[in-house]
């Protein structure tokens, strides 16, 4: 069972190197992360992007990229299509986002999944490592679906449960968030919570459990609880997966890592492998950790599938 990002980097070293395409590593932080990941033995990179820019930043971080496959491409959608295409044709195990917005990758993956007829929905999981919690916690969907309806939420949960199982959580707990309060009309997100809980109980979401309650208060204090002091809060109760009601909520909360004592690592699991989704503002240490996660997930997927 993977309990921390340290476990992830240890395993990545053990299972690597895996072939990974980086989409537009055109700034120093991304290139430094690729360099370190290669040095650590996680990956064998394929670099796709603006040749001039990649050369410049590689030189700046002291990385000789002449020895790797490099594909010159300036159009961002094409960069993304090329990388995802190689993942789906089995030429490589992992793709990592570089300095391009997630929406390009989202489009490429949707097209590729539809071509492959997998029926898989695309969603992003942002994993947090939280001190005092003995497992990683996935916020989802933090990157793709703007306002997922019930059907989309079912698919988003299935993706997260799949990842949870890969990480070694046999029956992941899922918190379905809704801002339903004691007043006002019933919110769609609360209706979805009730339906998802029923569906999970009936086994319709696979091996997982939707926990009772729709807010962090419910999770940590109980649905009728009150907090007397912060000391009474036991973070160990944090579920493995937090399903957020919409993209704004997921993305805004998962990036609290810049403020809280947590580490973040984001990825998408496609039917053909992992795609690392670091934020364009992430620093090289964080990106390196996210690449390591991609390696571990890819390794475990290969074993599942083949």
């Amino acid at each position: 069972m993977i309990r921390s990002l340290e476990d992830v980097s240890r395993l990545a070293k053990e299972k690597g190197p895996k072939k990974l395409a980086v989409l537009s590593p055109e700034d120093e932080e991304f290139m430094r992360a690729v360099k370190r990941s290669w040095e650590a033995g996680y990956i064998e990179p394929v670099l796709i992007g603006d040749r001039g820019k990649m050369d410049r930043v590689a030189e700046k971080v002291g990385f000789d990229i002449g020895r790797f496959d490099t594909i010159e491409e300036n159009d961002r959608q094409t960069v993304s299509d090329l990388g995802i295409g190689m993942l789906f044709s089995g030429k490589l195990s992992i793709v990592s986002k570089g300095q391009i917005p997630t929406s390009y990758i989202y489009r490429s993956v949707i097209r590729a999944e539809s071509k492959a007829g997998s029926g898989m929905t695309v969603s992003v999981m942002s994993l947090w490592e939280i001190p005092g919690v003995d497992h990683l916690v996935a916020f989802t969907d933090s990157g793709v679906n703007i306002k997922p309806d019930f059907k989309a939420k079912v698919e988003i949960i299935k993706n997260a449960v799949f990842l949870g199982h890969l990480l070694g959580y046999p029956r992941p707990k899922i918190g379905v968030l809704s801002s339903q309060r004691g007043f006002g009309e019933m919110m769609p997100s609360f209706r979805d919570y009730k339906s998802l809980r029923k569906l999970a109980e009936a086994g319709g979401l696979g091996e997982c459990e939707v926990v009772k309650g729709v807010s962090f208060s419910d999770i940590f204090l109980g649905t009728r609880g009150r907090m007397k002091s912060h000391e009474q809060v036991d973070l160990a109760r944090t579920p493995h997966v937090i399903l957020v009601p919409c993209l704004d909520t997921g993305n805004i909360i998962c990036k609290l890592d810049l403020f809280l004592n947590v580490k973040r690592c984001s990825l998408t699991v496609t039917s053909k492998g992992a795609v690392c989704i670091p934020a364009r503002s992430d620093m090289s240490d964080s990106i390196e950790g996210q690449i390591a996660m991609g390696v571990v997930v890819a390794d475990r997927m290969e074993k599942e599938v083949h």
Partner: protein
Amino acid sequence: MTSTFKETVKEAKEGGVKKRIAVPSPKKHHMEPISRAAKEGFITPLLIGNGKAIEAMIGNSPLASLSYQIVEAGNSAETLRTAISLTRDGQADILLQGGVDQKTFMNAVLDVKTGLLKGKLASYVSVLQLHQIGKLVLVTDTFLNNFPGIVEKQLIVENALGLAGLLGMDQPKIAALAAIEQVNPSISSTLDAAILSKMSERKQFGKAFIEGPLDMDCALSQTAAARKGLQSVVTGNADIYLVPEIETGYQLIQAIVFFGKIETAGIILGTVKPVIPDLPFLSDEDRFIELALAAMISNKGVSHG
């Protein structure tokens, strides 16, 4: 500028006159923060309900030796009615939810005819004490408004600016949050944020400055923003965070409270007097601070909401 809750307590005391706090159907767990604020000398509780039961509850608690008033009333509907009319008529300065259930309380407070609305819109603001940067930060709306449109967001900002002014924020910097920092027509929060940002550029919010859309990394960190090619006085230095809607607001504040163990206090703005709803994720300490915050607002009172 008020940069800690300790200063808020000091300012609460500076009014000289004790603020009268209306508490309908008080329960035992309300006593700790109320007694403490009474002992610190900035409030007098008006406990509304069954006199005998309230006296029994006070028993030997610290409140027993302090000044308080009991207003006799029957069931919780009646205690709430009394509390609201005392507040509206100026016999109470601050209203607490007390032991009334949230639905009854909020409906009564927000009732257009018989409630406590001052202007067009009431909103809830969470005040955070951030030790790392040594200042208080506001997050709004984290409780009241579900899916505000641009008109409502403008009023939410104005309510928050009223409080920011009382806290001595001279030129408040506001981060209008969204999932991404680029304007994307299919993500409505980015459109609203962009419009508010443009309005502030045209000085429609006075000296306050709104930047948006900002995703959380850009809002929290100047370095992160710079890597995304974004230069602004707000990035890494916001005084007020405006959330796009309640799904984000209500969970964001709780994520901060639980994962960050951050002290917060919340208050309803846009009402004739400060109103404090009873939210589960506040500690006794936080509830004491809320009373101080409300008393401070009441002291400086002119521009509440």
